C-alpha cells in the first residue's frame, strides 16, 4: 500500500499546493490534505501555539494536529527559506519545522525539505526533493522526473492566477473542478493586498473576498498581477524589500496607486504580523500623501467578529460608490 503524506492547509499551501501534490504523487504516495479551517482547528492551534505567534501560524498548528489525528504516515512541513533569488521569506518559515516539532508531541515523521532558491539555482532544492524521493524508495531519476512535472504543474497553476483567478479558484480549476459562474455586473474594482494565507482561508479572513464580491466589487489580488508590474511598482522604493512577498505587497500597492486602475485598496494583515508592520506603515503613508486612491487596513485575529468586518467593508464600498457619483455629477 502506498504511504500517505499529509499537507496542512495553511501558510504557503495556497501558493504551492499543485507543486507539492504533483511531486508526492509522482514518487508514489497518496496525498491527504487537512480539513478546511474550522473552529476546532483554530482552537487547537491557538491552544498549542505560542501566544504571540501570528494568526496564520496558529491556524497552521491546528492543521498539523488535524493531520496527526488522521493518522497519516508523514506530514509535509517544508522549511521554505527563499523562493526567489536574493529574497527571503519571513523568519517563521525558516524555522517552521523546528517550531512545530517543539510545539506538538508524538508527530508522525515530518518531511522537512529545505526549499531555497536564494542562490538562484534549482540544484539545491532538487537535491532536497531527491532526498525525499529516497524516503519513498525512488531513484534519483524518478524523483527528478516527479520534480520537473511538479514545477510544470506549478507553472500551470500560476498562469491561472494571472488570468485573474484567486488562489482558491485557481486551485479548484487546477484540480479539474468547475467554477460556479459568477454574475459579472460589478460596478466597483477593489484590490485586496495581503498574504494569500490571510485572505484565502475563508474561515480566518471571514470570507472577505466573497463578501466584497457580493457587494458588487470585482476583486484583484497581487497574485493576479504580472511580475513585471509588481517590479515596476517596487522600483519606486529607495531600497528593495528583502522578503519577496512583502516586496510583492509593496510593489502591488504602489502599482495600483500609480495606475489608479482600481477604485480602492484594502490591505489585510494578521494581528502581530512583523513584516506587515513595515509594509503597512509605508503603504498607508504613501497612499495618504497621494490622496488619490482610498485605502483601508483590516487586521484579522482569532476573535472572529464577523459583524465588525462586515460594517467596515460596507462603509468602504459605500464610500467608493459615493466617490464615483461625485465624479459623475
Amino acid at each position, binding site marked *: 500500500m502506498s504511504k500517505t503524506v499529509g499537507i496542512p492547509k495553511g501558510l504557503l499551501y495556497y501558493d504551492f499546493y499543485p507543486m507539492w501534490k504533483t511531486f508526492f504523487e509522482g514518487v508514489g504516495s497518496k496525498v491527504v490534505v487537512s480539513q478546511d479551517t474550522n473552529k476546532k482547528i483554530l482552537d487547537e492551534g491557538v491552544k498549542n501555539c505560542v501566544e504571540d505567534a501570528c494568526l496564520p501560524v496558529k491556524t497552521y498548528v491546528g492543521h498539523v494536529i488535524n493531520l496527526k489525528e488522521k493518522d497519516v504516515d508523514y506530514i509535509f512541513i517544508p522549511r521554505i527559506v527563499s523562493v526567489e533569488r536574493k529574497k527571503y521569506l519571513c523568519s517563521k518559515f525558516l*524555522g517552521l519545522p523546528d517550531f512545530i516539532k517543539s510545539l506538538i508531541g508524538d508527530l508522525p515523521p515530518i518531511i522537512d525539505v529545505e526549499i531555497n532558491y536564494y542562490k538562484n539555482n534549482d540544484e539545491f532544492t532538487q537535491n532536497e526533493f531527491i532526498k525525499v524521493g529516497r524516503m519513498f524508495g525512488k531513484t534519483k531519476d524518478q524523483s527528478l522526473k516527479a520534480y520537473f512535472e511538479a514545477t510544470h504543474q506549478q507553472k500551470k497553476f500560476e498562469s491561472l492566477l494571472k488570468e485573474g483567478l484567486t488562489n482558491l479558484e485557481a486551485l479548484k480549476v487546477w484540480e479539474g473542478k468547475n467554477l460556479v459562474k459568477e454574475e459579472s455586473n460589478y460596478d466597483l474594482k477593489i484590490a485586496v493586498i495581503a498574504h494569500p494565507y490571510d485572505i484565502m482561508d475563508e474561515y480566518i479572513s471571514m470570507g472577505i473576498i466573497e463578501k466584497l464580491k457580493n457587494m458588487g466589487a470585482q476583486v484583484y489580488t497581487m497574485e493576479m498581477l504580472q511580475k513585471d508590474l509588481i517590479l515596476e511598482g517596487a522600483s519606486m522604493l529607495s531600497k528593495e524589500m528583502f522578503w519577496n512577498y512583502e516586496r510583492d505587497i509593496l510593489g502591488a500597492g504602489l502599482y495600483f496607486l500609480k495606475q489608479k486602475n482600481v477604485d480602492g485598496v484594502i490591505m489585510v494583515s494578521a494581528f502581530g504580523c512583523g513584516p506587515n508592520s513595515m509594509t503597512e506603515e509605508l503603504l498607508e503613508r504613501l497612499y495618504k500623501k497621494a490622496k488619490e486612491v482610498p485605502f483601508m487596513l483590516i487586521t484579522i485575529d482569532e476573535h472572529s467578529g464577523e459583524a465588525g468586518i462586515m460594517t467596515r467593508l460596507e462603509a468602504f464600498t459605500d464610500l467608493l460608490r459615493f466617490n464615483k457619483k461625485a465624479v459623475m455629477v
Partner: protein
Amino acid sequence: MKITYPHMGSLNMILKTMFEGIGVEVIDPPPSTNKTLTLGVRNSHEFACLPFKINVGNFIEALDKGADTIIMLGGIGPCRFGYYGQVQREILKDLGYDFKMIIVDPPHGRLIDFLKELASYFPNVDGKIALKSFVFAVKKMIAADKLEKFLLKYRAHEDNPGVTTKIYEEYMKKLEKAQNGKEVDKIVSEAMKKIKENANVRRKIQLKVALVGEIYMLLEPFTNMDISKSLNELGVEVTKTEYLSDYLINSAFKLPQRMEFKKNARGYLERDIGGHGLNTVANTVKYAKLNYDGVIHILPFTCTPEIVAQGIIAKISRDYNIPVMSLVYDENTGQAGYQTRLEAFVDLLYRKRMEVVC
C-alpha cells in the same frame, strides 16, 4: 554636519568616541525616557517592534536638539531590522523634519568592507585617523562590556543595596570621557576593585540565571526595565548572552562563533532564522548544559524570530529540566508586573535547589 544615532546600550559612547575622533560634530540623543517611548509609539505602526519605536523617539528628540544627519544600520533580512531605516525616514519626513539619513549595511563578510563603506560617507577624513579612532572606540566598548559582565556577577553580592550601581555609573561616566587607552585600563581596574570591595555577601544557595533573547532588548536597560538589576537585587548572579563587543567580533570573524551556535542548537533549530533566534536557542542549550538554575528569555512584542525561538526553548526547558521564562516587552511600562514575575521565578528556582539539597 551634526550626526546622531539611536541608543543601544553603550553604543552611543562608542559612536561618540569614534565620530569625535575624526572631527565630526555629534548630537547625542537624550537618554531614552517615557517621553521618547511616547513619541515613538505615537508615530509608529502598532505592530512595529519596541526597538523600532524607541529608535523613532530617539531620532525625534535628537533632531529637535539640532541634529541634521542620522546614522542607521541596514540589513538584508530576514529580520525586519534591515528595513527600519527606510520606514523611519518616511515617518520623520512626514513629521516635517529636514535631515539626511545614512543607512549603512552591516558587515556581512569582512569588517573592513563595512568600514570602507562607512568611510565613503566622510570623504575628507584621513584614513589613519579614522582607523585610530575606530580602534580606540572598540577598546572602550570592550572595556564597558567587561565592566558590565563583572557588575552582573558581583552586584548580587553587594553589602549595601544600591552602592554597586552607583560605583558602576560613576565609572561609566569616567569611561565616556577617557581620552586614551591607558586611562581606559585604569578606570576598568579601579572600578572592578571598588565593586569587589563592596561585595561580600555569601549565600548557601547561589542562583545563576542566563539572560537570552533579542540583542536590543538585552542591551538597553531602559527597554528591559533594567532586568539584570532587579535580578541582582534578588541575589541572583546574571549572565547576559549578548554584548556589543561580542556582536562586533562575531560579525568580523563570523565562522567560529556561528559554528558554536549551530552545534548547540542542533536538534532544536537547524538554521539561522534571522534576528537572534538561533542565538537564543543555542544559548539556552548552552547554559542548560552549564547547569545554570534558570534562563530568562526577553523579546519585544511581535518579534518573529524570537517567537519561533520561544516555542522551541519551551521544549529545551522540558528536555533539560531547566526553568525557562519568556518575558515579552511592549510599550506598556508596568514595571510592577515584571517585578512580580521575576520574584516568582526566583522563588521557584530556590525551591528547586532546596529539593536537591534536602
